[in-house]
């Protein structure tokens, strides 16, 4: 499970400090719903997920109702904190595997969000899905219930890679469910993972070609990260599997960029490609642009105007807090202006819109000789830099952390 950052204790009434109200009108508002259930726990996964049906007082059957009570809680807490009600600009159901729950549960939660806060007509309303846990009817139901986008955890098209990743779905199912989704009128995306132990460049090429053939609107491709505490980390430690190699990852990334751009995709963030600007994940863009979002569900993180909090991880503890009428937040941090600026550089450098040099310089970042060095190392686009924007090259995207560190000086 990922380590939470260290924060201060979050107040039980869920009230947000006044500082978060500053410039509120310049930020859009988004909803994330965390469904912490999975059929099996994959060896590499460090997300907050559970395979059991019952955890203490919480069950999958009562989960939607518990989460709905957090939506009510959010409404009250925001209002008491002085926020004018804002409609959601995007909604995203992630996990876990949201589609472990019946479509009616997802629709009920979405309906509650809509009734309580409202959702903009143009909003991206996405759910993640496991190719094996949905069928044609389920997808039709989602569409009818208000979802307009679906993201499938495809990961790989190569059986031995799926096996190492401990993914149980059948590769051929992906094509089928993507077809259902398109037929139902949903925008589609697939998630891919590269760099698994034993995966060759040719294997990855096969996966990319299969993903391209699905003709989705959007593709995310992530390099496999060995997160501490996962089964994979233990396997690497005892030498059972080889640690992922950054040089191979770099080769695979370059191949990804090459094949996807040939197929008409545009990279818009380090790990994300879309056919058009309109098909970017509006929800993820909100994270990278430091917008406001409320994360509902166990372990979900929220961010409102420089205040970030995270809910208790355990579904039973979450459910206990909700039934007691208390905030599910475990801890929070109030990010000062300097750190908000640092986060802005850290996040916006990753996206293809880039980040303004003028703004950075006004904050004392991006010294001229540093920028010159980045240009010399072919990490940022030179012409864009001269026009006042830092935009990473493909090589630079692989070294985004280095570039950020340099820019911050």
């Amino acid at each position: 499970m990922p380590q939470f950052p260290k924060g201060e204790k979050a107040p039980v009434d869920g009230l947000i400090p006044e500082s978060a109200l500053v410039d509120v009108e310049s930020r859009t508002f988004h909803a994330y719903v965390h469904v912490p259930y999975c059929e099996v726990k994959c060896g590499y996964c460090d997300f907050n997920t559970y395979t059991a049906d019952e955890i203490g007082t919480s069950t999958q059957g009562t989960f939607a109702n518990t989460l709905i009570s957090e939506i009510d809680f959010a409404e009250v807490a925001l209002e008491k904190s002085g926020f004018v009600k804002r409609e959601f600009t995007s909604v995203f159901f992630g996990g876990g595997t949201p589609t472990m729950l019946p479509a009616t549960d997802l629709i009920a939660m979405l309906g509650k969000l809509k009734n309580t806060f409202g959702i903009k007509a143009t909003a991206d309303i996405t759910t993640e899905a496991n190719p094996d846990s949905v069928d044609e009817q389920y997808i039709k139901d989602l569409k009818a219930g208000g979802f307009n986008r679906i993201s499938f955890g495809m990961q790989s098209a190569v059986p031995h890679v799926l096996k190492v990743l401990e993914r149980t779905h059948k590769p051929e199912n992906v094509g089928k469910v993507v077809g259902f989704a398109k037929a139902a009128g949903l925008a589609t995306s697939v998630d891919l993972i590269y760099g698994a132990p034993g995966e060759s460049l040719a294997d990855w090429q096969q996966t990319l070609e299969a993903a391209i053939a699905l003709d989705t609107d959007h593709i995310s491709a992530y390099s496999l990260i060995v997160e501490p505490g996962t089964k994979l980390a233990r396997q690497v430690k005892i030498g059972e599997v080889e640690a992922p190699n950054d040089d191979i990852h770099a080769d695979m990334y370059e191949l990804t960029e090459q094949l996807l751009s040939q197929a008409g995709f545009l990279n818009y963030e380090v790990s994300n490609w879309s056919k058009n600007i309109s098909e970017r994940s509006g929800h993820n863009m909100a994270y990278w642009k430091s917008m406001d979002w409320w994360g509902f569900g166990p372990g979900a993180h929220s961010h409102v105007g420089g205040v970030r909090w995270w809910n208790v991880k355990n579904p039973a503890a979450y459910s206990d807090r909700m039934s007691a009428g208390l905030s599910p937040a475990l801890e929070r941090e109030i990010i000062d202006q300097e750190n908000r600026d640092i986060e802005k550089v850290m996040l916006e450098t990753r996206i293809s819109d880039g980040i303004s040099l003028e703004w950075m310089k006004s904050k004392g970042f991006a010294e001229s000789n540093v920028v010159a060095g980045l240009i010399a190392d072919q990490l940022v686009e030179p012409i864009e830099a001269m026009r006042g924007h830092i935009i990473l090259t493909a090589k630079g995207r692989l070294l985004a952390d280095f570039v950020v560190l340099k820019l911050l000086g």
Partner: protein
Amino acid sequence: MSPRATTSLVPGKTNPEFIRNFCIIAHIDHGKSTLADRMLQLTGVVDDRSMRAQYLDRMDIERERGITIKSQAVRMPWEFEGKTFAMNMIDTPGHVDFTYEVSRSLAACEGAILLVDAAQGIEAQTLANLYLAIENDLEIIPVLNKIDLPAAQPEKYAEELANLIGGDPADCLRVSGKTGVGVSELLDQIVRKIPAPVGDPNAPARAMIFDSVYDSYRGVVTYVRMVDGSMTPRERITMMSTKAVHECLEIGVSSPEPEPTKGLGVGEVGYLITGVKDVRQSKVGDTVTSAMKPATQALKGYSEPKPMVYSGIYPIDGSDYPVLREALDKLKLSDASLVYEPETSVALGFGFRCGFLGLLHLEIITERLEREFNLDLIATAPSVVYEVTLEDKRQVTVTNPSEYPVGKISKVLEPMVKATLLSPKDYVGTIMELCQSRRGTLVDMQYFGTDRVQLRYTMPLAEIVFDFFDNLKSRTQGYGSLDYEESGMEQGDLVKVDILLQGEQVDAFSAIVHKDKAYAYGVMMTTKLRELIPRQAFEVPIQAAIGARIIARESIRAFRKDVLAKCYGGDISRKRKLLEKQKEGKKRMKMVGRVEVPQEAFIAALSSSAEKKGEKKAK
């Protein structure tokens, strides 16, 4: 057994006939300080209640390491055959780095106790000091110490000593500094065998300085041996080397705490306080005379301290530079042989180029700086002094590889030493191998007793300053010992090897080495740096070069990926905190051109054989 003397002789009015001046020559750990402790107790100058171990060693470092760095003199009363004597024990430094100071201490004595561990036999450094003592015409009293040890072999080593200095093995005294056995016999023997000092009481005063110690309360305390004439408090005195005149504020003897007296007469040993604040104004070996009635001839044997080994000393935290400067300024007050000047290094920042008498001196100074001034330091590889002659006849003295001249060089002179190595005979082969690999030339080989061998070599000092001693110790399982003395300059086939990071020279790693070893040095340093320097966003070549000629090359491949693929809502705080950590780490990076090198990498690369140092630094 002689009783303690009931009355002491009055300093300044003592007939030289009843004075005995002696020192103890011993190897580190052979029990010199413990023996001295017993003498202090036995003669009653320190009562049993105030006795503490190694009473005379004042610095913590001396007591902890069991070695004496600065000598002192103690006056003890002793009764022999009904007469009271004044016994002046002059404590000598035991280490080869301080040969000059040793020779001055010896010159203040008429006799020496040759103290040898009865379980270990004589060691090379003791031999060197013994040699100096014999040169100074001292009466030698051989003594085996630690006879209480189960492993003691007094017969064997008595034989060894008799072989060495002549005489009958039976004349070799057997004592235990620990239990006190044999110590009073030893004191008797000193009275019997060591000659009384001889001097002209009516001649102008001449006193030889054999030690000079800085005391933060009293200023410089100068230890002297009166050779001719006498001196009294409130007298104006002259230092003959500098002609500087001081007022003598206090004269006294140590017994062992300082006791002011009415003066010092011929043959006596004591101290002077003049109020000067810097030991450089009161130099070991110099002659003190009266300003009113000065002597015309200084005593023989004075020379200026000359550093043999240089090293750059840098604070690990650059902001400690002023503290380091202050610390050196302070140490200088009590150590006339320490020289230093500011130096800047690309790799290490601001520091000082320091000259030392030898490796131990270097180690002691760095340790004192770290301990007494709470500094974290890094010392560059020690370097010796080279005399370089260019083809245009220009001559350059090089104490730091970075001063090595560019241009056509006609010859390079390097300091040579005569090295004496002592070891059980089983290790002769491995020692010879070591010396050969260090450009040593065998002078001779000599057996002491049946199983110990002395090897004498001439070899370049540079070969010794570079991990020779550690190597010797490990090859001989700790039994080998080493001593060396300067032996002039010789022409060497030497070159300067530079280390370049992405074309930029890293000064701290330049070295002057023998031509045949240049390649090995280049490979060693480039390999080491490749392992120590983290990958950068671009490829970094590491080269070793002699002038423009590259002799070894490694490269650090560029890293190509460092980005975490996911950065969603729950990742942001974590990632920002990681970034803060990386930023913190970056602050401790040194830039060589565009290459970021962690300070630790430089330190690791410089401390080739300095595991011991690492331990010490662990606070």
